[in-house]
Structures are given as structure tokens and as C-alpha cells.
């Protein structure tokens, strides 16, 4: 009986390992085909990254914009207010969020938020929008609060 079981167990095991082999082939293809495509096109298409980190720099003549968040005390004193001291919600991405908000990038995507589409239509098109049209929303929504979750 034990011999029969051992043979049966081997058959079950072989079938299990065949299933795992197929699963691993599918997983490898599902991960690496899009990764290869992203790499070949040098284009990040979430969730597939093209490893385009730290490519910029070098050009001394090209201008750069950077932003500093400052606050004002009741006494009228201006002080630097690093966002990371207020929240870590975006962990390392605040600088690019602010730059995108200043450049109205959320208006230029193929399918913008209905409120953004309405705002752009109300001023006669995206090109007529004032710079940083939604920055006020960001500053209002991200005022100093204790971390609570």
C-alpha cells in the first residue's frame, strides 16, 4: 500500500511541478515583455518602468525652475516650510507635484478631470488658463495639520 501511495504521490508531484513550470513561464513573459518594450522605447508606462532615473543634468545653459514653500507667521515673519515637515504622504514626489501644478499639467492630459475641463472651457481654452491655475487648491488642502493616519 505504501508503495502504491508513493507512486501516486510522485504522479501528483510531477503534475504539480508541471503546473508550476507553466505558471513561471507565464509570469516571466508577463513581466519581461512589457519591461523590454518600456526599455526599448525609453518610455515609462505604469507599472512598467524604463529605468530613466538620473538622466537629466549637464546642460549649464538651460534654465531650471525650482520652488520653495514659505509661510508667514501671525507677526508677519516669513519662514521656510519644507512640506516633508507637514506630511510624508507623497514620500519624495512633492517637488514634481508642485512643478506639475505650476505648469497646469493636469489640464493637458487626454482626459482631464471634469472640473478642470470646465475651468478650461470657461476661460476659452487651456492656453488661456492662468499659470498655476490649481495651485491654490493644493495650498489650501495641504495646510498644516497633525498626522492622524
Amino acid at each position, binding site marked *: 500500500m505504501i508503495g502504491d501511495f508513493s507512486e501516486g504521490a510522485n504522479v501528483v508531484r510531477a503534475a504539480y511541478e508541471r503546473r508550476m513550470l507553466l505558471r513561471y513561464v507565464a509570469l516571466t513573459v508577463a513581466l519581461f515583455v512589457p*519591461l523590454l518594450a518600456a526599455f526599448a522605447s525609453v518610455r515609462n508606462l505604469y*507599472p512598467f518602468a524604463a529605468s530613466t*532615473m538620473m538622466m537629466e543634468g549637464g546642460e549649464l545653459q538651460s534654465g531650471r525652475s525650482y520652488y520653495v514653500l514659505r509661510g508667514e507667521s501671525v507677526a508677519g515673519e516669513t519662514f521656510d516650510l519644507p512640506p516633508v515637515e507637514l506630511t510624508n504622504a507623497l514620500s519624495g514626489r512633492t517637488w514634481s507635484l508642485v512643478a506639475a501644478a505650476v505648469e497646469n499639467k493636469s489640464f493637458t492630459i487626454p482626459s482631464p*478631470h471634469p472640473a478642470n475641463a470646465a475651468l478650461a472651457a470657461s476661460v476659452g481654452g487651456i492656453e488661456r488658463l492662468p499659470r498655476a491655475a490649481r495651485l491654490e487648491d493644493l495650498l489650501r488642502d495641504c495646510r498644516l495639520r497633525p498626522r492622524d493616519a
Partner: protein
Amino acid sequence: MPTDAAALGMIRAGVCGFVLSEILLTSFSDLGRLPATLLRPTGAMQIFSWRFYDALLTPAGVLALKCLLVVSLAAATVGYMTGLSTKSSALLFVFYEGLLRSFGHFNHDEMPAVYILFVLAFAPCGDAFSVDAWPRKSSPRASAFVYGYPVLLMRILLAWSYFTSALVKLRVAGLNYFSPDNLPTLAIMHSLDNLHDTHHHLAFLLPRVRHVTPYAVALVLLWELAFPLAIFSKRARRLILAAGVVFHVVTLFLLNVFFPYHLAMYLVFVDWPSVARKLERFGWFRRAQRVWRELRGPREAFAGGARPDEPSSSDAKEN
């Protein structure tokens, strides 16, 4: 290359535990206060409607997301309902990271962790070192391939991130990447604002040593190109991973850019059962092992082990 169930289980616990700690330490309530009008859904995130994002980006909506992530990752860390919890962790984490990238830029730090979670989701990583393995009291029995291939795949995915990063730099920037102004400009660019997570100013010293920076950049590029050697060679692995730690710490102080997820994922290169064997020299570790064995109960004498879908050894006796 470790090829046993325990190694895969330990990697699962380490990866999921790290992601869990990061999620626990992040303020989701503030994320929920960001206006949806600043969102630019990236890639696969475009499949969700604006109505969905409006409902999600509220303190209650993101708190629900955080609760789901914490429960799922905690279960995956301890190996409870591992098949389900690793899959839900991978799906929730890929969604959460996509949400963050829809506000900011497409940064690369967490991406290997996303892929590694997907590998774990489709590997039998709950067969050992897990709550799921407790009732069996037997070692899992499958070929080295079943447990070894996922470890190999995870190592390749991390090496891919570094290796292709070097190739893309060479392809896009060419030899200009070795310009003496490249590193100082890049570093200073990331040190001017106060919006980064750190505010180190060592970048402003770089122009004084700009003639040396091309060599440093070339060295880093060579290290990135050599990273795949860490997959197979033990000696190369020690050198490459140590250099990786130094590199990421230096970028933190010079560029205000840090890659904690990349660093944490180095754990897929460690043979954890071998580390555990080395720790047996220490009395405290042996005592902890004894407590663990008593908690787990004695192993059955004939436990060659069986997978859950195989008849158990006790069934065999009855037959």
C-alpha cells in the same frame, strides 16, 4: 542560490514586512486631502474613472485603502492565507504606487518591490516560514526548481533595474553623460528647493571637484552594468551589494534622492536559511529556536513532507 521553501518564505516575510512598515509610517489622511484636480492618472491608472478617484481621494477613502493594505500585507508577512494575501498585497500596492505617481513623477524606487510582490503572489512562498505551514508540521517537498526559480526571478528583476538604468543613460545621453558638469548640475538641481524629503547641501561643493566627477560617474555606471554578476557569484555579490549601499547613501547626501526600496530589496540576494544556521552559534538564537519548536510541536517522524494538495503522510499509513 537558495532553492528551499524556507528561503522563499523568509524572503516573503522580509519583503512584505518592509512594505508593511513603510505603509504604516505614511500619512494616508494627508494623501486623501490632495485635490483630485491635480491628478494625472499614469499608464494603467487611466482605467479608473474620475468618479472613482473623487470618491477615493477623501480621508475616509484613503483610510479604507490603508486598512486593506495593512491587513493584506500583515497576513502576507506572517504567511496567513498566503496565496490570497500575497495576491491582494501585490494588487493593492501596485494601485497605491500608481496613485502616488499620478500626482508626482514616475520615480523608480518602489518598482522592483512591485514586481517582486507579483513574483511572490504566484510562487509557493507560504510552504515554509509561515502560519499556513504550522498545521502540517512537515517540510514541503518539491523540486529545487519550484522554490529556486522565484528567487532567481526576483534577483533578475532587481538587477534589471540597475543594468537597464546604465544602458538607458548611455543610449540617451551618450558620452555627454561623462561631462564634468553633469553630476554637479544634477545634484545642485535637486538641492535648491525645500520640497525634497531631505535638504542636504553637499551638492554645492561638487563644482570645486568637477574634474573628478566624470570618473565617479563612470565608476557608478560600471557598477550598474556589473550588477547582474551579483545573481550568481557570491564574491561579486558581496562587493556589488556593499557598493550599492554606499551609492544610495551618497546619493542621499549629494542629490537628496534616496532609494530605500531598492536597498531593502537587496534581501532577495541573501541566503536566509544559511544566515539562520550561522546564528545558531549564539545562545539567544538557540533558545528562540527551542521556544519556536515547542510552539510548533514535534515534527512527525516520517515527514518527508507533502504539499497541501498531496495526500498527507498519515493518510499513507492508513492505506
